[in-house]
């Protein structure tokens, strides 16, 4: 069990904000940390890692990592951390990056096999693709056999194909090393695939906390499905109004009544849902 109960004043782009989080995480859980940028996700991760200070308490199992009197140094926490920008040691080859953390050749070899990197073990990080670098970073984070694995948007710089592949590898490693994993993510499909719990932060506070399905599914009542989108334009055509809405990478038209149109405005974030028909799914 990890118990985090911390407070910290943050000076963000929108002025001061109090990051105040009280969170209990079960051992072996895979928690996704979601929320808009600037909501305090990364800071929370860094406080847990010991890279930033905060007031409050952090307890991991029976060990106190931080309370009023003590603060365990980052070196002694024995966690694994995966950065968004990989942060590999540029002067060391792939295998050296791993062995620098822990001189355990068998483990390094095993990790490189799992992530299909054995062939590249003598290459310098700068000669690898983004996906390969992030796998090295993942392997490196596991070299200390950490009990806690923290990942700060590990896959957001990668293309969708590489992302899906690495999600699979992350899941395999999470299970094999039995880590308690906390991952910052913006991608609902990624959270759904990997996490058994999703925590949403907004302005430094937890606003949602539950299973991936509960938090991520946006339908309510008898709605069959529902999407969040932004109104780009509202046009009057004869007696009806048509709202042009951008949903994900798509643009759709929705007929709205005059009364509804009055309450909507351009750039508003709305939810588009439907009840009365069965959607058809066709392959492209």
């Amino acid at each position, binding site marked *: 069990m990890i118990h985090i109960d911390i407070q910290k004043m943050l000076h963000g782009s929108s002025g001061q904000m109090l990051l105040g989080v009280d969170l209990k995480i079960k051992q072996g859980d895979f928690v996704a940390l979601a929320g808009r940028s600037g909501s305090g996700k990364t800071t929370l991760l860094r406080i847990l890692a010991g890279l930033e200070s905060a007031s409050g308490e952090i307890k991991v199992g029976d060990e106190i990592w931080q309370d009023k009197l003590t603060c365990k140094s980052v070196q002694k926490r024995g*966690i694994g951390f995966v950065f968004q920008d990989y942060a590999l040691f540029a*002067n060391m080859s792939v295998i050296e990056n791993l062995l620098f953390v822990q001189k355990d050749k068998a483990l390094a070899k095993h990790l490189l096999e799992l992530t299909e990197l054995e062939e590249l073990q003598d290459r310098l990080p700068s000669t690898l693709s983004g996906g390969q670098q992030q796998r090295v970073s993942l392997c*490196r984070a596991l070299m200390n056999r950490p009990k806690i694995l923290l990942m700060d948007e590990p896959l957001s710089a990668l293309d969708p194909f590489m992302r899906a592949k690495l999600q699979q590898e992350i899941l395999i490693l999470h299970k094999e090393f039995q880590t308690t994993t906390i991952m910052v993510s913006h991608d609902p499909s990624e959270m759904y695939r990997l996490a058994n719990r999703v925590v949403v932060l907004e302005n430094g506070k937890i606003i949602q906390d539950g299973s991936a399905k509960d938090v991520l599914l946006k339908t309510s009542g008898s709605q069959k499905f529902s999407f969040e989108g932004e109104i780009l334009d509202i046009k009057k055509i004869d007696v009806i109004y048509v709202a042009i809405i951008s949903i994900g990478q798509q643009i759709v038209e929705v007929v709205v009544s005059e009364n509804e149109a009055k309450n909507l405005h351009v750039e508003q974030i709305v939810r588009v849902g439907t009840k009365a028909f069965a959607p058809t799914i066709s392959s492209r």
Partner: protein
Amino acid sequence: MFENLEFAPFILSFKLAGITTAILFTLSLPLAWWLSQSKSKIKSFIEAVTALPIVLPPSVLGFYILWALSHNSPIGAFFDEIFGIKLVFNFTGLVVASCFYSLPFMVQPLQGGFESLNKNMLEASYISGKSRLKTLLRVALPNIKPALLSAIIITFAHTVGEFGVVLMVGGSIPGETKVASVAIYEMVEIMDYTSAHIYSAIMVSISFLVLLSVYIFNKRYVKKVGL
């Protein structure tokens, strides 16, 4: 025309530059590392003090150093009475003076190099359990090779090229404090233009070759590591 040429001033210049560079490298490394990582309030104060030798006239710097190292100041008196070391008008004094004079040329490139490092990379090292010292030696230093080379070469070259401070603190004692730049000054004074030409040409060539090799190395290194 070469029969009257003395190479002692050159040897002295390079000896002085070599010793100064070695001392400054050892002292500046922890200082530059601290400056690059620190959020302390006195950081700006320390930065301003280390940069002073760049803006001060060498005569001002030379005057203060001369005064501080002489018998008239507690520092000079202390070294003379306790260790029996005289610090003015000899080679030891020149080394001390050069260390002050060239300090910013060692500290600033090193600090710049450390500051340009990816902070996450250093943090990754701390997270994996490595101390600050080990991170400095194994991660930070190997990744700032161009800055390291620049700092060492520029400090060396700058010390070879110093004139005003050396003249004030060391005078011009042959074989002891008469370095190449002072020797050239004296040649011009006694209107020995031939020797002055030769000495100056040697200085220009060596300096140019040194700088050229730094730039070539840095270009190749950047290509290799892909910074």
